[in-house]
């Protein structure tokens, strides 16, 4: 078999290049820094977060003249990076796929304008989805935005592509998207560390309003220019299918890209196929050399396309009579292409049907807020303060408040606030309108909660805004927020407190309370809600640090917990409060000491006072 894209069997010690096992995201960060980018901007989001973290660490460890920032959101990240790239310098903006939705405005416009210094947008997709709202395919977005997109299949390839993408971006004066998927971002592989060569480039901004400030007239010119660039890019070797397995003279051919191609190679190496097949890999799914695709269908009577998650390559075949894939149902039209799905599709296509499929139908354990998480206390208190209410919430660890009935909606970043307004308008004329709360995390509030708060305030909506302030962006791996500071590698910049930001939106009543004190917090929410009658939007900040922060955890009082004889086994602490450390076994509550952090909050939940806490020294 042809194995030239598979790894060699031994790493050997042929040269003295440093080799390290890197996470795909770390490899991409190394590629960005080694290419001499001087601006790197990102908003955290799984599966992309580690790229910016790694870039930040590299920049400070090696004391490089690179500006790495956690931007307030993806749109801002792209705008900052793009602008650095129109001064001839290199930049990268990093986000997850739904972050690209937020950044879509500048990305589509930037494609028209082009760049003078390399601009690489790293956009991580999440087929599955594992940690996202959608399975959207950034390659399809790239087509819509008319931006070339690269689809790496492994950390090693992601590193190589990142390095080449900067030169490519400069050659064609266009932004380039690198689209890794979760299985590339969160794979680890031995890679050769690239040398970091600082690029000594002066910023050079040539004023040209017909490009950088184009009005609709010149935009038409730019659009034509963009189309011409894309036709030129179609001549690049990346735009052509590359034979990676087989002779190229077989009846059956498979065209693939990304990690799905890696699975194909593994499946064939493992199981073989009854009929010989040829496998072609596509490095750049858009733009493609369509004539090269047509010659594939001329050469091979049957062609299968295996790609994640939308039929982007498939739809670019001019004649699809001999082509099967997602569009004719040969490949499932949703969900991740795991090795077993790829094997199954391949068996169907080649008529091998080798052996019985093994599947794992494991019941996945549902995630929940950590034991002792202050969000749990906040949700429990909000439910008590606003019984029968509607709780519009948002994206973060706290989405898991749905396990205890504290989250009714979760649409997209910042929507807690606008959905609360929407519910207000929906119910305002009903005889008994339900109380409404918008429950949003600190980082999410800064990201997309500010405009809808102003909007609600100036359009007459009435609800209480609860900002869960745990002083971090916890879900994605504890990145900083504007209120904590540390948004850049050199700690430049001031901080902005939530109080200042909320007051700046025009909100008058802003209460701050620690949700660990559940009755006090309940009162704060109740009072703030009462004032919505006259003030419209009022706010409560639930302030307690994330207990995954070691220092914060060590700083708080720790209690030894005990269930007393009074316990009736009613299960309120499990059903309504849902701390993973508590379970009811044989009609009696039990606290798992290996999970319990001794926060003592559950004492306030038990209706018969059967949970006892003793302060530990």
């Amino acid at each position, binding site marked *: 078999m042809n194995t030239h894209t*598979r790894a060699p069997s031994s790493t050997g010690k042929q040269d003295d290049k440093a080799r390290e096992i890197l996470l795909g995201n770390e490899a991409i960060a190394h590629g960005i820094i080694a290419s001499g980018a001087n601006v790197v901007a990102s908003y955290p989001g799984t599966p992309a977060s580690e790229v910016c973290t790694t870039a930040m660490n590299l920049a400070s460890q090696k004391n490089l003249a690179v500006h790495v920032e956690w931007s307030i959101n993806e749109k801002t990240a792209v705008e900052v990076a793009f602008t650095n790239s129109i001064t001839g310098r290199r930049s990268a903006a990093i986000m997850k796929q739904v972050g690209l939705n937020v950044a879509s405005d500048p990305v589509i416009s930037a494609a028209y304008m082009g760049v003078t210094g390399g601009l690489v947008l790293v956009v991580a997709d999440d087929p599955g989805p594992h940690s996202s709202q959608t399975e959207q395919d950034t390659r399809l977005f790239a087509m819509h935005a008319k931006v070339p997109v690269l689809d790496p299949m492994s950390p090693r390839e992601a590193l190589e592509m990142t390095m080449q993408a900067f030169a490519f971006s400069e050659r064609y004066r266009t932004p380039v998207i690198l689209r890794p998927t979760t299985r590339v971002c969160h794979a680890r*592989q031995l890679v050769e560390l690239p040398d970091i060569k600082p690029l000594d480039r002066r910023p050079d901004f040539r004023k040209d309003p017909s490009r950088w400030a184009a009005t609709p007239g010149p935009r038409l010119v730019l659009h034509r220019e963009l189309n011409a660039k894309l036709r030129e890019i179609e001549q690049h070797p990346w735009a052509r299918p590359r034979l990676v397995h087989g002779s190229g003279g077989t009846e059956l051919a498979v065209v693939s890209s990304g990690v799905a191609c890696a*699975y194909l190679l593994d499946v064939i*190496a*493992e199981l073989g196929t009854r009929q010989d097949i040829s496998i072609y890999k596509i490095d750049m799914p858009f733009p493609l050399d369509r004539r090269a695709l047509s010659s594939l269908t001329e050469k091979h009577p049957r062609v299968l396309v295996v790609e994640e998650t939308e039929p982007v390559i498939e739809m670019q075949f001019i004649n699809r009579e001999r082509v099967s894939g997602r569009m004719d149902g040969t490949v499932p039209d949703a969900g991740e292409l795991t090795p077993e799905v790829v094997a199954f599709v391949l068996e169907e296509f080649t008529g091998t049907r080798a052996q019985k499929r093994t599947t794992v139908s*494991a*019941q996945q354990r549902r995630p929940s807020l950590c034991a002792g998480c202050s969000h749990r206390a906040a949700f429990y208190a909000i439910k008590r303060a606003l019984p029968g209410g509607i709780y519009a919430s948002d994206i973060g660890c706290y989405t898991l408040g749905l396990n205890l009935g504290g989250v009714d909606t979760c649409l997209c970043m910042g929507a807690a606030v606008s959905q609360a307004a929407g519910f207000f308008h929906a119910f305002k004329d009903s005889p008994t309108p339900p109380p409404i709360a918008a429950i949003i995390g600190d980082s999410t509030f800064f990201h997309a909660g500010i405009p809808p708060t102003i909007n609600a305030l100036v359009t007459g909506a009435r609800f209480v805004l609860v900002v869960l302030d745990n002083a971090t962006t916890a879900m994605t791996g504890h990145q900083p927020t504007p209120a904590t500071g540390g948004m850049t590698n050199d700690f430049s910049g001031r901080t902005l407190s939530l109080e200042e930001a909320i007051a700046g939106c025009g909100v008058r009543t802003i209460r701050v309370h620690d949700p660990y004190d559940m009755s006090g917090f309940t009162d704060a929410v109740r009072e703030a809600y009462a004032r919505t009658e006259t003030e419209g939007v009022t706010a409560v900040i639930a302030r307690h640090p994330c207990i995954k922060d070691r220092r914060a955890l060590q700083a708080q009082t720790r209690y030894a917990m005990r269930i007393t004889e009074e316990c009736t086994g009613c299960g309120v602490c499990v059903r309504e409060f849902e701390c993973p450390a508590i379970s009811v076994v044989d009609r009696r509550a039990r606290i798992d000491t290996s999970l319990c952090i001794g926060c003592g909050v559950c004492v306030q939940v038990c209706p018969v006072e059967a949970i006892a806490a003793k302060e530990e020294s």
Partner: protein
Amino acid sequence: MSQGACSDRQIFMVGLGGQGILLLARALAEWAAATGREVISSETHGMAMRGGTVTASLKIGRYAGPLIPPGAADVLIGLDEHEALSHLPMLRKDGVSIVNTAVDTGNFSHVVDAAGIARSLGAPGAVNMIVLGCTAQVLGIDRAEIEKIVKRVSPAKAKKANLKALQAGFDALVP
């Protein structure tokens, strides 16, 4: 060409968020790389890490993709008994399983009460390192080699406790 070649190996790991499966996976990957072989691995990040099912795959040898198909793992490592049981179909027919459980139900080839040992060491969070020690023992991994790696990959504060747990794990399996 991974069929039968004794150096090629696929190791599947499963546990719950917070049990430290990623560090275990990382240590095994570093070990494999140190022996001069290619490695590619995959791990769960994000929401599942909040107490949900967390899996990791490690493929040693000539593999292109990071995931292991069901029925193909040579080794299954379970930090949680229930998760290990429900992921047992990942293992090939005569594969080896090493699982943390207090009671031997006869479902696995090797069991260890890692949680119990961890408690007795005063380090309830070190289940992952105890199971790593057992794994090293079962797979014939050189003790000094794996100790060196655990020293390197452990966060500074956990280094001592991790090493102690690793050693306890190494000695825990009575053959």
